[in-house]
């Protein structure tokens, strides 16, 4: 081994990173070469100088606390809710997805709500009244004829008001069947549009506000008041029908 090779491998020898054969070759060379052996001893001097404690900077104690605090904070930030970790989600996601599918299917299995059914029935009654030309059992524009007609046919007395002056003439009344009971149907007209007003006693004492729905091209407005349910159905446009409802309410209040 020449000096050039020895110099290249000197650090590996010093650091104990050479294979045993190379170690022997280097040792052999250092025995017979003064410059290389001095070079080696210089490295040893430097290394032992570096190994003194003052060369190794130990972390200040408050840095340990600082880092611990910030890492724990980061851990919290990573998992804002401990039960919502990714591993938990991996398990929960399919369950949640299945639950969602079931929830979406429930309306088909459970069917429409009773309220939806009633709305359907109200609209169906309205349509039927027009189809079979059976608008009124008592065709009369006189409220004083229509109202007494219900006596004895129903167990309640519906409020009947003529709104001809306001452009919604009463054209008659009839018996109908809704919500598992006989109800009063008052028929009004606005131009060519027919308005059916279904009235029956409410089992709820409190009043409920107006609720408006559109179904099959008909507008349905309902409310409860003075112990009565009111359902108004017509193909009349919505703001016209709302105007009619306002008048009807004003009349029934006065009554």
């Amino acid at each position, binding site marked *: 081994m020449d000096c050039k090779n020895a110099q290249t491998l000197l650090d590996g020898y010093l650091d104990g*990173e050479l294979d045993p054969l190379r170690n022997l070759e280097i040792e052999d060379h250092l025995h017979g070469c003064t410059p290389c052996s001095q070079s080696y001893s210089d490295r040893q001097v430097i290394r032992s100088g570096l190994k003194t404690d003052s060369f190794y900077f130990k972390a200040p104690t408050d840095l340990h606390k600082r880092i611990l605090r*910030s890492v724990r904070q*980061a851990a919290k930030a990573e998992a804002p809710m401990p039960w919502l970790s990714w*591993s938990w989600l991996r398990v929960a996601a399919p369950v949640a997805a299945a639950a969602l599918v079931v929830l979406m299917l429930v309306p088909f299995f459970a069917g429409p709500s009773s309220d939806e059914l009633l709305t359907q029935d109200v609209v169906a009654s309205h349509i039927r009244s027009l189809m079979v030309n059976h608008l009124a059992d008592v065709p009369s524009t006189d409220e004083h004829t229509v109202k007494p007609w219900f006596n004895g046919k129903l167990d309640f007395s519906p409020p009947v008001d003529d709104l001809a002056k306001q452009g919604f003439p009463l054209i008659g009344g009839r018996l109908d069947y809704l919500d598992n009971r006989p109800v009063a149907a008052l028929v009004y007209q606005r131009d060519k549009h027919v308005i059916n007003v279904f009235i029956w006693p409410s089992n709820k004492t409190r009043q409920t506000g107006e609720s408006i729905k559109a179904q099959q091209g008909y507008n349905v407005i309902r409310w409860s008041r003075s112990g009565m349910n009111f359902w108004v159905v017509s193909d009349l446009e919505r703001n016209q029908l709302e105007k009619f409802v306002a008048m009807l309410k004003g009349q029934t209040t006065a009554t």
Partner: protein
Amino acid sequence: MGDQSKLTRFEQSILPHLDAAYNLARWLTRNEHDAEDIAQESYLRAFKFFDGFHGTDARAWLLAIVRNTCYTWLHQNRGRETMASFDEEIHTIENEASNPAKLVLKSDDREMLKEALEELPVEFREVVVLRDLEELSYKQVAEVANIPLGTVMSRLARARERLKRILCTRLKEKP
């Protein structure tokens, strides 16, 4: 595994190497305050990437993060320090004949050695710190400094040679 156990594993495997992290950052930045900031930032990075750590050498893994954080910081704050003064091909080993005097370091010369190490280009400084202070194997040094295994020995040789030259010059100037 939940995040609680991640934190626990992190505290058990990575936190004990804080001295190593701080020591490397302190030598690479040559400043206590910056070293503390870099150590903290490195730990936060380490925690963030901890899920990706599957090895057994936690210290080398952490030191690689500290080293990268330091280099980013040096690049941002002391742009000229990295690589500017460093070119491995130019820094050839000097002829031993030019430094025939036998090196002797007395205990009060240690401060001189410390200064000499701080004067080394950062690429030389880091291999000396990792090998002689942190006592990592060449393989670990290669991993942390992100250099080929063969480069570790040659870079160490040049770094130590430089240290020796600086010391010889200073010792001669010493009254």
